[in-house]
């Protein structure tokens, strides 16, 4: 059980190297290696749940058996506590489903062995980042992750803008990594160790200016990896041009890794959450990310670019909840991160399915696909309803916890913006539903077929998970979210492992207890009663339908009878489908100055994006130097 973390990481990297050696020739070997590697790491991480989550002890593993000598860490250690494992489970789940989806999805692409190598490298790096206990190791894993991500973004280089997106991602990514490196080194100059547990023990309330400088740099670097608003422009381009199974992994794992790094940095390394100013900084960033993400998404014309902006705005939710550093806030943040991975992954897979079936994801060209692809439409609706937070689905519970947390922390404006953003999310997904799935179908999609089964299985798995996490909030929180919150808030156990027992008791005091998220807190009347209620009502309505003398529904016959044509005030019903940017004219007209400004602000020039990144880093540094001590 001691070796599971390192084994799960190594199997993925080993899978990558084996694919290079054996997989380059034929397809099945390559797929087999990828499947075996991801399923092994899935099983290993899931077996870690019992010891870490339930009995909540922290697993430590020293690479190369470089044990600390008279308790000074010299080797690289993996420390898996509940927080790390929570994000590990999210990552492993996304990897497994994405690989299954990509078997058929990349059938039309050439050189797919390069795809599997890069994807396994990406997944190994994310798992490594989540399990590592060493700051420099975290930097190396971030670097590998960015590297693989850039390679995968440019995978379909024939696609419009893929190369440009990859280049911008690389430049911004390397700026972020340099900041993380500089931050790591400044901490090292301060405490002369790289082990995170030891750093947090030594840095406990003796924050010298250089430590603050390191904190600002690390915060900027990690929020660039999590694509928080000032740093976000590389994300929509990258998500749009990468294959959908990869952009599902991006929005499921890569920005979650950034969020994990921020939580680890802010809660565990620097105990910065005791300072009110750091909380306000995170909340401001989160709220801005939320609002700009969704308003940009409303104005998009491409399905995947719209989804990319939604990932950014949902990460804004998570960061705001994490910024509200009460136990309820962190529970809301982590629960929303889990839900986000599920429904966003689902939506990216539906985007992939549409791209696979029709060859385009442009909202202005598609229409009426629900009749040809009924299952994809049903799955899309589940994803759309859960992201916009309608009750029976999982978005409702986590967004509801975010509202409660923010409002109880006396942040009324944040709650109001959060609720407004939630409605705008609903608006943009109605726009997508109308322009892609409903309405009239253009001629060229007549012979569109449903996607093959191996692509639909991961979609159905995710849809069911979406509903489960929505209907059973107390089980999910008890076994997954609350242990992670305890691990993040009272870090005594994490430090004791390294510095010997009782060390943290002296400096940190008693651990903070965590409120159990029960139904009333989760804004629910217990879900089983929901199901009973819905069943009762369905029966009632059918009784009324049957007895009430309803006449049979007259369905359209094959013959060309105008009775079943759509009412065009008398005209012959030619193809006129209200789609893409015909919708929400009223909103766009009223906010046209705002939308215009936003459109020009995302100019696409790499220098502007770099300017934003560096400008916001300076703001972080100045803010933290002025306000924190």
């Amino acid at each position, binding site marked *: 059980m001691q070796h599971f973390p390192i084994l799960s990481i190594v199997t993925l990297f080993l899978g990558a190297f084996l694919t290079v050696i054996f997989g380059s020739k034929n397809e099945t070997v390559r797929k087999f290696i990828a499947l075996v590697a991801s399923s092994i790491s899935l099983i290993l991480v899931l077996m870690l749940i019992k010891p870490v989550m339930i009995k909540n002890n922290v697993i430590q593993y020293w690479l190369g058996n470089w044990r600390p000598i008279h308790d000074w860490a010299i080797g690289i250690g993996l420390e898996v506590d509940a927080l790390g494992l929570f994000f590990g489970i999210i990552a492993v789940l996304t990897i497994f489903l994405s690989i299954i989806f990509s078997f058929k999805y990349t059938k039309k692409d050439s050189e797919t062995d390069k795809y599997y190598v890069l994807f396994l490298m990406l997944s190994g790096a994310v798992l490594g980042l989540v399990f590592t206990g060493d700051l420099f190791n975290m930097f190396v894993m971030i*670097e590998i992750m960015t590297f693989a991500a850039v390679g995968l973004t440019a995978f379909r280089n024939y696609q419009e*803008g893929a*190369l440009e997106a990859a*280049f911008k991602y690389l430049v911004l990514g390397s700026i972020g990594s340099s900041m993380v490196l500089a931050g790591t*080194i400044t901490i090292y100059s301060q405490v002369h160790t790289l082990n995170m547990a030891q750093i947090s023990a030594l840095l406990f309330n003796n924050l010298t200016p250089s430590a603050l400088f390191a904190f600002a740099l690390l915060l900027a670097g990690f929020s660039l990896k999590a694509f928080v608003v000032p740093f976000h422009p590389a994300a929509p*381009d990258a998500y*749009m041009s990468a294959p959908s199974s990869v952009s599902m992994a991006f929005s499921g794992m890569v920005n979650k890794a950034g969020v994990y790094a921020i939580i680890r940095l802010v809660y565990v390394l620097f105990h910065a959450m005791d300072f009110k100013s750091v909380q306000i900084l995170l909340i401001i960033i989160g709220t801005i990310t939320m609002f700009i993400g969704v308003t940009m998404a409303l104005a998009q014309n491409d399905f995947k670019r719209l989804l990319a902006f939604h990932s950014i705005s949902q990460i804004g939710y998570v960061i705001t909840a994490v910024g509200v550093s009460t136990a309820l806030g962190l529970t809301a943040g982590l629960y929303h991160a889990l839900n986000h991975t599920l429904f966003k992954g689902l939506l990216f897979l539906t985007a992939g399915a549409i791209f696979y079936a029709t060859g385009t994801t442009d909202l202005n060209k598609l229409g009426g696909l629900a009749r040809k692809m009924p299952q994809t439409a049903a799955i899309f609706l589940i994803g759309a309803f859960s992201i916009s937070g309608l009750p029976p689905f999982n978005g409702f519970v986590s967004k509801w916890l975010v509202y409660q947390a923010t409002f109880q922390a006396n942040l009324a404006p944040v709650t109001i913006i959060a609720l407004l953003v939630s409605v705008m999310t609903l608006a943009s997904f109605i726009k997508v539903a109308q322009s892609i799935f409903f309405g009239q179908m253009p001629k060229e999609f007549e012979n569109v077929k449903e996607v093959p089964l191996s692509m639909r299985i991961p979609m159905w798995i995710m849809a069911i998970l979406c509903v489960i996490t929505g209907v059973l909030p107390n089980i999910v929180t008890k076994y997954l979210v609350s242990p992670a919150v305890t691990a993040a808030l009272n870090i005594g156990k994490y430090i004791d492992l390294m510095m010997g027992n009782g060390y943290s008791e002296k400096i940190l005091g008693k651990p903070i207890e965590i409120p159990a998220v029960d139904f009333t807190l989760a804004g629910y009347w217990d879900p089983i009663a929901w199901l009973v209620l819905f069943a009762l009502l369905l029966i009632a309505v059918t009784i009324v339908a049957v007895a009430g003398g309803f006449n049979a529904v007259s369905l359209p016959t094959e013959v060309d009878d105008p009775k079943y044509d759509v009412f065009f005030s008398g005209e012959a019903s030619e193809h006129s489908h209200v789609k893409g940017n015909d919708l929400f004219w009223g909103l766009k007209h009223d906010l046209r100055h705002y939308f215009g400004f936003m459109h020009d602000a995302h100019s*696409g020039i790499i220098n502007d994006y770099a300017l934003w990144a560096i400008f916001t880093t300076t703001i972080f540094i100045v803010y933290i130097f002025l306000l924190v001590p």
Partner: protein
Amino acid sequence: MILVNYIACIILIVLGFYVILTKKNILKIIIGMGLIDYGINLLIISIGFNPGGTAPIFTFTELKPESFFVDPVPQALTLTSIVIGACVTAMALSLVIKIKEKYGTLDADKVRRLNG
């Protein structure tokens, strides 16, 4: 004496940022990224410097209690960082070649089909 190293690092990093921000030619942007990397590598090395220490390379026989070394850990970190810097530059250059093929120009103002 060590202060000169720190000032050199700062100059290198600021120069790198300046190049990334202002130069429109994407090749120069890559050079800018390289500059930042080298600045930080110099920073790492100069952090681990103990005045009067010798290089931390020894065999067990030579290890005497009074032998005084420079801190070896940052030097290990620099190795990885240099390798990463090299790979990033290599990847960026391959992307630039493909961009030149596809867009026909290296000017950042023209390579902006994805915007808004």
